[in-house]
Each structure stands twice: as structure tokens, then as C-alpha cells.
């Protein structure tokens, strides 16, 4: 008997089942297909404007910084302002996301936004989020050429652009939107839920930002709620 068979048999023995019971099989199939929602905190369920305000508050509470701009064309100036604030080189790496490609980067003068393989020496990166979640100030990013996963972790400074309309109240709305975009029960290789910059409290429980991932996380919300 294979290890797989042994484990399944042991589980079934303990549960007193055979695995062939139709009602059990149906219950499992229904739950997976229907994915019922549980308790959803009220805090994220306000008006779109309240949702954006909560999102901003929670990003800051998680030690991230946040800016709001009206139009994608305003993003380069905001990126430049962020880099200047921390005396960083005016350069960042991005993926090939069309929403980032369409941004008029040249408007920010000396700012150099490059694409290509993630370079471990690059200090800053720009990603476009799939969504934001107001209840905890969380960003949702999906892997692929558009927004390579390593750009979320290798650089010291991670700048994330998110459309205001993609800021949801809760995680459940994000799962639903992921299903709509990628299909039922299918996901990209990596989905990153990111809440603030990297940190560790492993030394005497002293919280320090910038463990292995970015030391700074800057969120730029584009458009109106």
C-alpha cells in the first residue's frame, strides 16, 4: 500500500468512514464550489470614500506610507517625490503591466523607470496591485511578467500603484475578483498579500523594519473612489 493509501485509510479508520459516502462527498464538493462566506468585519463595509480612508489609515498603521493622485499621469511626480524624500537614486524597476507602461514616466524629468529581469542591486521597484483591502491596509499582487514577484521582495523600497476602484472592503471581495479574472479554482503561481514593509521582532521582541524584504512600502492610490 502506498503512503497515500496508508494515510487515507488511517484517516478513514479514525473517522469511521469509507470515503464513498455520497452525502459526505456532496458536502465537500458543494463547499468548494459554493465557497460560502463567514464573518466579515463591519469596518470595511462603509461607503467607497470611507473605504479608501480606512485603507489609507491601515496602510499607515502597518508602517507603510500612502499618497493619493487623481490621474495615472500624476504617478511619476509622486514616485519622484518619494525617492527624493529618502535621498534614493532616481531609478526604479517595473514589470510590463500595461497600466504601468502607459504612465508618462518621462514627465518626472530625471526619473529612470526600467523593465527587465529583476536586478538584485536595484534599490527601488514599482508594481501595480491587483487590489487593495481596506480592512487591514493590505495590497494584493499577482505574479507574472506584468508584475514579477521578486520585485516585491528584492528591492529596499517597494512602490505599489493601486486603482481606487480596486480597493475593496474585505478579502472575500478579492477572492471573488480573482475568480472572475483567472477562472474558478485557478490562480497564478503567486498571489502576495502585503501589509506594510518587511519586519522582524526576533531579537528581544524589538520591532525593526526591513528584515529580508523592503524597508519601505509606498502606496499610490490612483483615481476617485
Amino acid at each position, binding site marked *: 500500500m502506498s503512503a497515500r493509501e496508508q494515510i487515507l485509510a488511517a484517516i478513514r479508520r479514525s*473517522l469511521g468512514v469509507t470515503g464513498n459516502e455520497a452525502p459526505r462527498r456532496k458536502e465537500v464538493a458543494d463547499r468548494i464550489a459554493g465557497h460560502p462566506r463567514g464573518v466579515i468585519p463591519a469596518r470595511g463595509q462603509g461607503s467607497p470614500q470611507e473605504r479608501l480612508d480606512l485603507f489609507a489609515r491601515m496602510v499607515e498603521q502597518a508602517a507603510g506610507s500612502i499618497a493619493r493622485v487623481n490621474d495615472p499621469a500624476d504617478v511619476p511626480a509622486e514616485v519622484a517625490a518619494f525617492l527624493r524624500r529618502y535621498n534614493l537614486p532616481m531609478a526604479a524597476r517595473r514589470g510590463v503591466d500595461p497600466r504601468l507602461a502607459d504612465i508618462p514616466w518621462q514627465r518626472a524629468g530625471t526619473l529612470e523607470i526600467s523593465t527587465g529581469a529583476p536586478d538584485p542591486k536595484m534599490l527601488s521597484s514599482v508594481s501595480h496591485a491587483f487590489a487593495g483591502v481596506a480592512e487591514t491596509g493590505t495590497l494584493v499582487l499577482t505574479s*507574472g511578467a506584468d508584475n514579477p514577484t521578486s520585485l516585491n521582495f528584492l528591492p529596499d523600497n517597494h512602490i505599489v500603484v493601486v486603482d481606487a476602484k480596486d480597493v475593496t472592503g474585505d*478579502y472575500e471581495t478579492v477572492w471573488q475578483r480573482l475568480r472572475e479574472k483567472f477562472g474558478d479554482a485557478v490562480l497564478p503561481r503567486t498571489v502576495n498579500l502585503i501589509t506594510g514593509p518587511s519586519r*522582524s521582532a526576533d531579537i528581544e*521582541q524589538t520591532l525593526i523594519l526591513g528584515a529580508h*524584504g523592503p524597508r519601505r512600502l509606498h502606496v499610490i492610490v490612483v483615481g476617485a473612489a
Partner: protein
Amino acid sequence: MTHVATSPHFKENAKAALADTELQNALKFVEVNIVTRRREVVDRLPEFDALRDSARDIKNHTLAHLDLYLEAYEQKVTAAGGYVHYAVTAEDAKRIVLDLCRKFGARTVTKGKSMIGEEIGINDHLEANGIVPVETDLGEYIIQLRHEMPSHIIMPAVHLTKTQIEADFRRAHDKLPADRDLTEATSLLTEARTILREKFLAADVGITGANFLVAETGTSIIVTNEGNGDLTQTLPKAHIVLASIEKLVPTFEDVSQLLRVLARSATAQEMSVYTTLSTGPRRADDPDGPGEYHVVILDNGRSSMLGGDFADMLRCIRCGACMNHCPVFHAVGGHAYGWVYPGPMGAVLTPSLIGVDQAGQLPNASTFCGRCEEVCPVRIPLPRMMRSWREREFERHLSPATVRGGLAFWAFFAKRPRLYGLATSLLARLLALIGRRKGRFGWLPLASGWTRHREFPAPQGATFQAQWKAHKAGRR
């Protein structure tokens, strides 16, 4: 089992821990920092208790259908191009991981934090076979330098002070300038970050644990704060996930319920920094990510816990809240428990995994104050289960003869209430008589465990039962 359990010597371990000044200095932070901060973050979420009920119900439902969720999960992993390996025992899991590492020609392997990795002792096994495992979680990295086990399931190095860590870094990173300043925690972290960055880029295989395995999509989830798990699983050519059967969760809606209680209970955060969903290997046009994705699912005795007295323990999501709130853990730390899992959850789980003959002392290391159950995000009745273990330890004649004798003596009287009342009132009168001058005893036969540390007051008046009887009669 690779780690030799010192659980049978809990008493000796605890004694040594209480006398260890460095350890006591390190432990004093736990109660102050974490307990208060958890309270604050929980108070900010009015739905917290409802979420705990929901989390408990999801886990119970999944465990009751675990065979079917495992099958569904496996099918989805395979459909996404990944592989599922089953391991009945720790030995099986080690063999599978080693075979995979050899297949990828691995020389160095980076590791995210994994309690299953600790449980099976994967690092020693890889090392013995010429593969260098590098722990990348800061706490795990520190204890790997010291060849220690974690002393806490989410803060592995909580038993150490900054000064000790500085000494370890100076010893291990001996190529760096000796006069560098490492007095601040920040400088220690920066040094580890720089050293580990090279390891991330050089590793052939990345091994992570899993907080959840999602049946709906065949996804494994890790929840971290440092980002080390993500670099571990994104940069090398293969990603191996170490998990156990009870990590299964049906859907993402269910995962959200668990996530909402996990970070708050574990680190007093609204949400951990990185919650990462991994499904299969990198896709055809992905610029990064591992070329292969393997999940090793360990049983190691868990399947036999289902449906029994200790089934509730399989709900555990490894947040560590029980140990953060445990007065025994605060006093002796995690190493005294002698194996991988410390604190109240360890006191219940360890006897299940390595046997009550090895770990029977652990369930005795409890004051039954009940704080562990009060804060458990999935409402595991930890005190009840510790009592069950005590009963089993007694039934199997594993407890010492003096304890058994004492209990039998007490039980004889407890079962005969009249005789009990008579004996205790005689004893009380006798003690009152002997102790009438000083009003207290500096030493008493059979009670030296008490009188060694404090005096025993001489009884005054009647026994409690007699007083209670009189009190009730008076009220009537």
C-alpha cells in the same frame, strides 16, 4: 525522530531554566509585550469572538472530511503542475526531501520557517548527507548558529538576549571586522540580512512550511513578517513545501476567517506583513518563480488523533497565543518542554506525537489557570486535554510511585465522605494543638514541598466542610 526529546526530564529542565539568569532576562519581555498588544488588537475588532467560532467550525468541518479534502487538494496541485508526496512518518518525509534535493543537484538549500521541518529534523538529515540547509527566518537563523531547537513556535529565539546573539554573530561571521558595532538590534538584523541575501541568491532549492493548504485551488499559504519565506520560494529552481495533514482548509473564504484570527493571536498584528499564496510552479511566461513545486504532506501520528480524545488539538493553527499567556512558559521558557512544541499546545501535542511515556510530564506542567483556552483562536480545550493525558499517565502506571500512592491514599478517603470528614477534623485539631504556640509550622512531614519555601499556618477552628455546614445551617 531526530531531536532527542528531553521531555522525560521536564522537572530537571525547569529547575535549570529557573536558575538561568540570561533566560529569565529574555523571558521577561513575553508577558509585557505580547499579552497587552494582543488585547489591544483584539479589542479593535468587535467580530473577533464570532471569528473564533467560525474558525473552530471550519477546522472541525475540514477534519471531519479530511480524506476527501486531501483528495480534492491533491488533484488541484497536480492540475497546476505541482507534485504531492505523502509521508507516513518523519523518516519518510526526510527521505522524500533528500531525494528531491538530490534530484535538483542541490548543494545549498534555503529554508523558511517550518515547524514540520523541526518535527522531522530535516536540517540534520540534509547536513548528514552533504547538503547545507540555511535557515533564513532571523530567529531560526540564530538558533541554527547555536544548534538549538526553537523555544517558541513563532519566536524561535525568544529565550535569547541581544548580548547572546551578538556573541553568536561574532563567532559565526568571523570574516567581518571584529571592531564592528553590534550593540543595537538593528545592526544585528542588518548583518543577518546582508549575509542571507547572498544565500538566497545562491540556493538551489527553497523549503518552506505552510500555514494552510487550500483544497479549492491546490494552493499552499505561508504567513510571515520578514519576507524570507518569499525569497526562499521565489529565487531557487525548486520550491518544496513541508506540511501536515491538518493544514487543509476548504476554500479562500474559509482561509480569510482563519487569517483574521491568526495574526492577531500570534503577533498582535491586524495582518501579518506577507501572506503568500503559491499554486504550482512558475508559468510559461513568468520571469521568476521556481521551476518545480513539491508538497510533502506528513501524517506522523496525526491521523490516529482524529475522532479521539485529542482530535481538537488538530485544529491548532500554531499561533503561539497559548504559550504567550502561560505562567509556566513565562517561568521556564520553551526548551524545558524538551521537544519541538512547547507551552500548553506542546503539552497536549507532544504526548500524541512521541508518546505519553516520553512526554507524560508535560501535561503536569500546568496550573490549570485556563488562560490558554481563553485566548486560543480556534477554542481548543487545552486544560481538558491536559487532564485527559494525566488520567492516561495514571492509568498506564507511568507516574511515580509516591504520586500514585498519595493519590490512592487520598482517593480512599475521598470516596468515603464520613471518614474523610472525621479524619480531617481530627487532623486539624491535632495540628492546631501542636502548633498552638507559634501558630505556624516551619516543617511538616509529607508537606516538605510546601514548608521548604514558606511556613504552613496552623489550623484555627473547624475544617472547611464543618464551617460550611454551619454557615449553611445558619442561613436557613
